[in-house]
């Protein structure tokens, strides 16, 4: 019995962390976020050299061939360091869909390109994880004779060369970003470290994934949700680390504020809430790899629970910093917003708890 990370997983985490600490510290993340530097091309390339974009792509397609638990470790590190790079869609959800539902020819075409970082593929699946009306009309994409029409909102990893698009009938398609009839619009969100956008389709030619069905869609959502949760674990851990460091050096009333129980207990509560989610993330990654019948329920409950915990950590860590926590100067809000992003994307806690109940036959 062993429930913990392997030395290879620790090494993966350390490599990604060291690279990001060096090459994408907060002041640089700010420049990407403010578009002074545009797309973080060099950081993306550096992480891909470590293997980020090909992490779960099989070696025969040029990837690293690792599993979901390894991907959790990577995602946690990206969240900790606010990495402004494509990951959840491009490196995880899209390859998962291709491996499960793509033809051998599609796999041979797309997977090596993604693994090599030559092609970035976003995911337009928001309407499949909880449809919302926008300005009075329902978003969604329909496929007629292999051509897509409609609107997809909140597209993940939006700065992409192609998109995986879910239609309302359950089909999955790949569409080039320069396809005729495709309109693209970046949508500003609170989290400026990860681009989100809108796609408008007017009879756009698309490449269907023939094997797409409900089980594939579920798996793609399960692994995407697990990754977003792992990202929140990393982001929340960073906020705790910053709050504890600040509480340990800020002096008021002649004392370090971390010696006041009011502040101390805020820190302890954050740590007590977050620490068990580390094992929860590992279990979810392991379930995706090895215990398929538990994976969907665990992914839903993990993302719901971690979103609640991380949201509370984000608020509390900001409060521990007092007025400075509210400023752009300290920059805590980048993590706060990253956690907010992860909470809403691919299902908010209430939606996921509803799904968890359905998965257990309680509804």
């Amino acid at each position, binding site marked *: 019995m062993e429930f*913990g990370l392997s030395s290879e997983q620790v090494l993966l985490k350390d490599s990604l962390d060291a690279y990001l600490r060096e090459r994408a510290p907060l002041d640089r993340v700010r420049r990407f976020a403010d578009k002074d530097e545009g797309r973080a091309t060099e950081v993306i390339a550096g992480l891909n050299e470590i293997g980020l974009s090909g992490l779960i792509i099989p070696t025969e397609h040029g990837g690293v061939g690792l599993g979901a638990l390894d991907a959790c470790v990577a995602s946690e590190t990206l969240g900790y360091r606010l990495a402004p790079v494509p990951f959840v869609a491009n490196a995880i959800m899209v390859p998962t869909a291709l491996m499960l539902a793509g033809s051998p020819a599609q796999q041979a075409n797309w997977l090596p390109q993604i693994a090599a970082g030559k092609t970035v593929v976003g995911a337009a699946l928001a309407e499949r994880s909880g449809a919302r009306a926008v300005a009075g009309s329902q978003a969604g994409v329909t496929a007629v004779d292999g051509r897509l029409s409609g609107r997809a909102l909140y597209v993940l990893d939006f700065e992409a060369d192609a998109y995986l698009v879910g239609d309302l009938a359950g089909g999955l398609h790949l569409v080039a970003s320069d396809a005729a009839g495709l309109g693209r619009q970046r949508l500003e969100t609170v989290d400026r470290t990860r681009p989100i956008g809108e796609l408008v389709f007017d009879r756009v030619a698309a490449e269907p994934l023939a094997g797409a069905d409900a089980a594939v869609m579920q798996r793609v959502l399960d692994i995407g949700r697990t990754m977003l949760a792992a990202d929140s674990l990393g982001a929340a851990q960073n906020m705790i680390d910053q709050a504890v460091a600040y509480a340990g050096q800020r002096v008021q009333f002649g004392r370090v504020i*971390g010696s006041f129980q009011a502040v*101390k207990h805020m820190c302890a509560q954050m740590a007590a809430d977050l620490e068990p989610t580390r094992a*929860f993330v590992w279990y979810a990654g392991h379930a995706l790899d090895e215990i398929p019948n538990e994976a969907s329920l665990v992914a839903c409950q993990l993302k*719901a*629970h971690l979103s609640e915990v991380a949201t509370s950590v984000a608020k509390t860590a900001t409060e521990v910093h007092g007025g400075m926590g509210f400023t752009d100067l300290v920059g805590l809000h980048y993590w706060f917003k990253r956690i907010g992003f992860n909470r809403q994307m691919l299902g908010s806690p209430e939606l996921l708890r509803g799904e968890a109940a359905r998965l257990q036959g309680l*509804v």
Partner: protein
Amino acid sequence: MDLSYGPEYEVFRDELRAFIAANRHLAPVAGGPRDEKARAWQRLLITHGYTARTIPSEYGGAGQPPDLLKSRIIAEEFASARISPGLGGQGISMLVPTLLEMGTEQQKRDFIPSTLSGETVWCQGYSEPGAGSDLAALRTSAVLKGDEWIINGQKIWTSTAHLADWIFCLVRTEPDAPKHLGISFLLFRMDTPGIEIRPLVDMTMNANFNEVFFTDVRVPAHQIVGRRGDGWKVANVILGNERDSLADPNIAQARLNALVELMKTETLDGRRLIDQPIYRDRLMRIQGRVMAMKYNELRVLSSKLNRGQDTALARMIVKLQGTELRHELEGLGIDVMGERGLAYGANPYLQDAGAWQVHYMFYLGLIIGGGTSQIQKNIIAERGLGLPREPKTAGAA
């Protein structure tokens, strides 16, 4: 990552299941160490190595080598079979491991076998009215006169004092030493003249605890564990174990399963509670927390089996989180029943013998007892996160 226990352990589990199936009619339904059926069950379990497992056989235990996975399998199987895993109580859970670590050979022989068999029942004399969270401030005094300690003072929160034959008790023997260094750990009979026991009824309306008063209680000088002034050290050998056992996530899982069943049968305006989204969301929310604590426990177990993983923080948070979680879980059970959730005692509409109400209140007691949630947070912040200790106020020792 490998969550299997391996073939050797699956064989062990199969043997245990076969044992339980063949012998469960012998298990006591309820009943403490005074019950002959419970004692016979205890003897049978020790013979098979299912309780007192690692205690050497010369002291009445099963004499098996320590094996965390076997211990865990035993706990899992007895819990899921819902039968007694053997005698418990503070003598077995706290004094026996303390004596094994700190007792003299004579003390081990005198006390461990009779405690394991249920012949000697113990109570724990630690807390005092003026020494709760600040336990080391205790003032019950023991003065050595000739070859006897003369004890005066008062203890409180003493569970099973009214049933106990003996007490293990922290007393102040060195009044001039710093507070942690002036305490000794004494053992004495509860029928010694000068001991008065008063039951302390708690909010569950049961007398789970007592107050115990000592007036010139005379105790032979050799009935001390460790040296004079070492009592704090002796007591701390096992205090950490007590905390974790108050918040077992496997028991929380069993209660969650019971809550699901309750919500499938209980109805409100003709609809099952499980079909009402607001109640169901609360249930799912608690389930997420139970899952987090279960996987956390798995991580801690793994770190005891395999080196290389630091789980100090993961262990420190268990009592805080586990007791708060149980209190909330039991409280949802009450809310699910609405007005019927108020039923208590002899009320004919009482559900599950009042388990929801009793646990709801009892777990509030456990949030406070064994180191309050606030003390837990101090420990997490200071030892887990490295935040500075509270400055000493003028006049505090």
